[in-house]
């Protein structure tokens, strides 16, 4: 059976699409199925603003270098633009545009009042000192000027940007507003250090959201998580937190793959011990309480749940036929390509799609924004409880919509997102 599916796919050589092309295909599929208003489809197929700034920054040797920064704002019909800023040499307008659009869907499905945006600077941070990084970040913030703002467009950390970078953006932005406005503006960025207005629970948010989704799925299916087996690809922030949070349910981690290789132990791998090992050795390779396995054997592991929490396009025409699981819970962004998706459906493997399953991160960013806006500081328990409600709400909407349209959960998730945007456009209309 597995071979037959693989053969079917390999007969027609699959077009290797990049992750954004996969998303676009999903958008089109959902739009067709729900009969999305063609006018609204036109609006959503385009970004609203694309800002490109060229700005100077002083290097340590006193010379000036010019940099190019981007901010693309896709849609803000549900609320202020929201999305990360990334620093790497390959940042370009197409990548930023694609990721901004993705953010719109992610926020809409999570049921938070944000639109989608993304930005970045095209340069290699490893070639710059701490001082240069600060000056580049501050000057970029200054160059963006009124194009970002706490009620307008809220940046967050992404590739090569972290809470320190957010603190510089915050400080630079606050220097540009009147002293009376400063304390009312600290929600200009999220992902801040806790001392500067960050939220409790931000570090585990994405993994926690994934586990809430799995918990709900288990309830729906009358599936006992106690003694359930699971495997994880990626033991970074999302993967390690998901594993640590599944431990109290009595579930057993039987295989892990990260960028250093894959390991397996049918008797179970302790996520806490593995996390300590990974922190020291920078990878799962060589973990003594498990056997090393190759990539293919990892995918063939018999388990109940697979959590891809690493990178894009991992469940494909080549790997999906190997999977021997009941559920795929996507902790990473875009881990399954179109062909992989089709194979999972044919194999009757349940799927919790990325825009639902890894939405915990953006939801807690929203909580951070909300706490800053209200001058509040929530305890971890409160953050967790609110996150649980949001995730379960989104889960139920996706489940009901998929049933209503008799479609897969990924398409169902897109329909939920597109419907909420369509509703706003319908009631508001288009100016003038």
């Amino acid at each position: 059976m597995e071979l037959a599916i693989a053969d079917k796919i390999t007969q027609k050589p699959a077009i290797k699409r990049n992750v954004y092309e996969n998303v676009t295909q999903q958008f089109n599929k959902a739009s067709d199925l729900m009969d999305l208003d063609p006018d609204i489809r036109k609006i959503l197929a385009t970004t609203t603003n694309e800002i490109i700034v060229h700005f100077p920054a002083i290097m340590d040797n006193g010379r000036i270098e010019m940099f190019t920064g981007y901010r693309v704002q896709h849609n803000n019909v549900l609320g202020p633009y929201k999305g990360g800023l990334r620093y790497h040499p390959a940042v370009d307008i197409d990548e930023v545009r694609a990721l901004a659009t993705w953010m719109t869907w992610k926020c809409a499905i999570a049921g938070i009042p944000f639109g989608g945006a993304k930005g970045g600077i095209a340069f290699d941070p490893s070639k710059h000192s701490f001082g240069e990084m600060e000056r580049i970040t501050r000057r970029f913030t200054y160059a963006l000027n009124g194009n970002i703002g706490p009620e307008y467009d809220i940046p967050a950390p992404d590739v090569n940007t972290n809470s320190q970078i957010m603190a510089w953006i915050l400080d630079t932005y606050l220097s540009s507003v009147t002293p009376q406005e400063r304390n009312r503006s600290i929600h200009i960025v999220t992902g801040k250090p806790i001392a500067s207005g960050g939220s409790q629970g931000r570090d585990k948010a994405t993994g926690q959201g994934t586990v809430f989704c799995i918990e709900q799925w288990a309830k729906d299916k009358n599936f006992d998580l106690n003694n359930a087996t699971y495997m994880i690809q990626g033991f970074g922030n999302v993967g390690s937190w998901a594993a640590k949070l599944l431990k109290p349910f009595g579930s057993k981690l039987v295989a892990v793959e990260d960028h250093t290789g894959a390991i397996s132990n049918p008797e179970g791998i302790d996520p806490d011990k593995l996390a300590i090992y990974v922190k020291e050795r920078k990878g799962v390779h060589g973990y003594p309480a498990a056997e090393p396995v190759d990539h293919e054997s990892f995918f063939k592991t018999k388990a109940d749940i697979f959590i891809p929490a690493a990178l894009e396009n991992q469940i494909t025409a080549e790997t999906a036929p190997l999977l021997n699981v009941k559920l795929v819970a996507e902790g990473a962004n875009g881990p399954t390509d179109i062909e992989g998706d089709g194979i999972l459906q044919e194999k009757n493997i349940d799927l919790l799609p990325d825009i639902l399953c890894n939405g915990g991160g953006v939801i807690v960013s929203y909580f951070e924004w909300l706490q800053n806006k209200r001058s509040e500081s929530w305890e971890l328990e409160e953050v967790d409880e609110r996150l649980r409600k949001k995730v379960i709400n989104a889960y139920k909407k996706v489940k009901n919509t998929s049933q209503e349209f008799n479609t897969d959960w990924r398409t169902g998730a897109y329909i939920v997102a597109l419907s909420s945007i369509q509703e706003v456009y319908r009631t508001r209309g288009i100016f003038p």
Partner: protein
Amino acid sequence: MDAVVRKIAPKKEENKNPGICASCKNLNFCTYPRNQSRPIMQCEEFLGFEPRTKQGKKVVSLRLYQAKTRKKEKELSQYKGLCRYCVNCEQCTLPRSEGGVWICDEYMDEE
């Protein structure tokens, strides 16, 4: 004419977008299967720039940063106000108050 033709002739085929892997510290020993035609845009194991984020560490301003490169931190810490950034600081014989000098006609910036 010939020269122009040669100039615009065959360009080396290059991968226009290497994705985020190009700036990832894990690149040299990363075992994830990756495909040139599908540059990675998002990866949870990306390892990149890590500035010093020691809690409470003061962010270094450009001015102070430049000053620090000229003088040892230890020496700097004994001066307050303008003297800290003044190129004459080490040779200066003017009496300087403990609270720091804030107005000085002798102050000199680098270059």
